[in-house]
């Protein structure tokens, strides 16, 4: 055998071994992702939407329909545990996923900020990348900013509370300027649920209005899932606010509030936050909420063909239409999967680094993290448009560049 043949055989052998090794590596790259969210309790409906969105993204990824970064994406195993909306239960659930199921990444909490504030402590303790989904409280980002080294593995998959605040303030500034809404005596009032979500939004909006010379006439907090608002509405009648902002995460609260507000014939412009995103609200209250402003119409299968396609996909899979929460959870999982794919391993620091480089257009908007590890909001990122219910349907009225109708 000539030297050339020997060298050729040797080279072919090394090349073949390399290919086999590469193939083995690609096949062996499996990741396990866990999620924790409220699958029981008052927010169980939203938790169910989150689970559908997360599962759908994993299903598509494993079936070759994902939006991959590399040619050898990992195979993904996914599991989700219930938190009941309580921090200590969430920690139990997360520790079960970490120690029993050996997850490589945690998505959690999917909804509650106060639960996320507890969960993010597990990132440094267990050297585990954690990405929360819908929580918005700025306190989470404040915690990251206070100690970025400690929370280098924690990322926040939604904008900060000030995203809503800025949008509501800017919308009204625009509405006052063009005469859509009369500022009157410049008095604003809030009726919000007694959660970090409700209170943080009220505080931010109140601060922005106060800076413009407004006074906060009342800030009424009610327990989550409240349906009796007559005491709060009576107080509001006396205070006579020109703008009323309500924030609830349970749609039944929103339905009751809007109905009772109409009964009490309160004057003043009403803007609702979050609950009109739920189909249950529109099913029950579209007629009585006619003319109401609300934020943020980030998901509308009626107005946005891309959202319609996603909603149809969810309906085909689960028998119910997709919601903003389904879409947001889907995008959160997409962001996580793409970061792991780009990292090419389950190394926590490599995943965190790729998360920091995320710049991804998903169904709810463009996801890009800021220095505080939170997804940014605004026209260039995830938009926070204000809608109005007109003839029983939602129409985007602000910002003008994405508006589908004029305000009425």
């Amino acid at each position, binding site marked *: 055998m000539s030297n050339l043949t020997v060298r050729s055989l040797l080279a072919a052998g090394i090349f073949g071994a390399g290919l086999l090794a590469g193939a083995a590596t690609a096949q062996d790259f499996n990741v396990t992702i866990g999620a924790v969210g409220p699958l029981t309790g008052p927010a169980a409906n939203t938790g169910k939407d989150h689970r559908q969105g997360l599962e759908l993204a994993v299903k598509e990824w494993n079936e070759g329909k994902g939006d991959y970064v590399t040619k050898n994406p990992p195979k993904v195993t996914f599991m989700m545990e219930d938190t*009941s909306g309580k921090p200590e239960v969430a920690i139990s659930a997360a520790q079960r996923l970490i120690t029993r199921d050996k997850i490589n990444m945690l998505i959690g909490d999917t909804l509650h900020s106060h639960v996320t*504030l507890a969960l993010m*402590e597990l990132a440094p303790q267990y050297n585990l990348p954690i990405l929360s989904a819908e929580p918005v*409280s700025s306190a989470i980002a404040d*915690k990251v900013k206070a100690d970025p080294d400690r929370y280098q593995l924690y990322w926040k998959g939604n904008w900060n509370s000030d995203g809503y605040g800025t949008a509501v303030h800017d919308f009204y500034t625009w509405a006052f300027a063009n005469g859509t809404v009369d500022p009157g005596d410049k008095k604003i009032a809030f009726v919000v649920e*007694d959660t970090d979500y409700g209170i943080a939004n009220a505080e931010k909006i109140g601060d922005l209005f106060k800076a413009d010379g407004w006074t906060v006439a009342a800030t009424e907090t009610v327990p989550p899932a409240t349906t009796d608002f007559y005491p709060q509405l009576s107080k509001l009648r006396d205070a006579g606010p020109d703008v009323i902002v309500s924030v609830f995460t349970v749609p039944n609260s929103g339905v009751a509030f809007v109905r009772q507000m109409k009964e009490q014939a309160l004057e003043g412009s009403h803007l609702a936050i979050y609950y009109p995103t739920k189909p249950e609200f529109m099913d029950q209250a579209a007629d009585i909420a006619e003319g109401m402003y609300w934020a943020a119409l980030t998901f509308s299968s009626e107005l946005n063909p891309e959202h319609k396609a996603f909603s149809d996909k969810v309906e085909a899979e689960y028998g119910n239409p997709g919601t903003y929460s389904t879409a947001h959870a889907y995008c959160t999982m997409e962001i996580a999967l793409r970061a792991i794919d780009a990292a090419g391993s389950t190394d926590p620091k490599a995943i965190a680094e790729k998360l920091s480089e995320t710049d991804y257009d998903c169904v709810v908007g463009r996801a890009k993290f800021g220095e505080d590890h939170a997804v940014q909001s605004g026209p260039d990122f995830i938009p926070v448009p204000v809608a109005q219910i007109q003839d029983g349907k939602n129409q985007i009225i602000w910002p003008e560049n994405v508006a589908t109708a004029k305000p009425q």
Partner: protein
Amino acid sequence: MLEVFGRHPFRAILIWALLLVVVPFLPLDDYVLHILTLFLIFAVFATGWNLTLGILGLKTLGHHAFFAIGAYASALVSHYFGVSPWLTIWLGAIIAAIAGIVIGFPILRIRSMPHVAIVTLAFAEIVRLVLSNLKEITRGELGFWGIPPFDPITIGGTTVQFGLGNAFGSFAVAAVMFVGVHLLLLMLLKSRSGLTFLAIRDGEAAAESLGVKLAAWKLFAFGVSAAIVGLSGAVYAHYVLILTPTSVAGPDMLISLLAMIIVGGVGRFFGPIYGALLLTVSSELLRDFGDYRMLLYGALIVVFVFIAPTGLAGLKPTSWRKRQEAASKPAEAT
């Protein structure tokens, strides 16, 4: 007395202590240690509450307020003043005890148990609302974070860490609290004080006629009970490291702890321990049933209330019961 403490209560505590000493040497993961830590904290909470609810016989429904007071007091002082949690947990217990004595005063005047229940429930709601509205200090429902974990301890060259993710250290703190509280409380209840509490429960008028100062003893019981519950709340705060008024003083906490006491056995010294163990562990074991978890959890409570109406601590082996029945029968002439 046998009904309240069982046959060998000190021996039972010794067995619990030995079991807890063995646990860290077993091949258990952090998850199991976390569940056991929660069980120990809630067992102490339930035992403290059982002192007034079961042993003294006052139908109080507001002890989750003392849990919240102990938790927030310890967390706030350690956070804002940089005091070690090893010291602030005692401060939390003392403040909770003072709160217990304060709420004890109006209860002295109330004879009707439903009214006692409503007053204490209202007190808990006031505490929750105050904690929610003191936003500048507690951050309300936004969640009070930045609570320091217990300072590390170095023993023989090994440093023991505490707080979330440091399962062994946190378990050890909870275990020491569990054994210490139960041992001291048992010593108290096996003394004249315990007999006095039982006398008040079984017949206030009779006890008073025998010279028992009802007001003083009730206030004392409230203080001790609230201090124990406050201590468990303080340890909880430095373990979980995040507090919201709803999570520590909300109705969920009330229902969970009440279920533990009822399932374990109201008025029985070891009842709350069994109830806390059963409900804390089963809540986690049922995770394998997915969406049916909470349904099964509720059904489990109903089943145990039916099969053991006097609580798990009241269950007796059949053979023992038969022997007791035989012993209580008068001897027949032959």
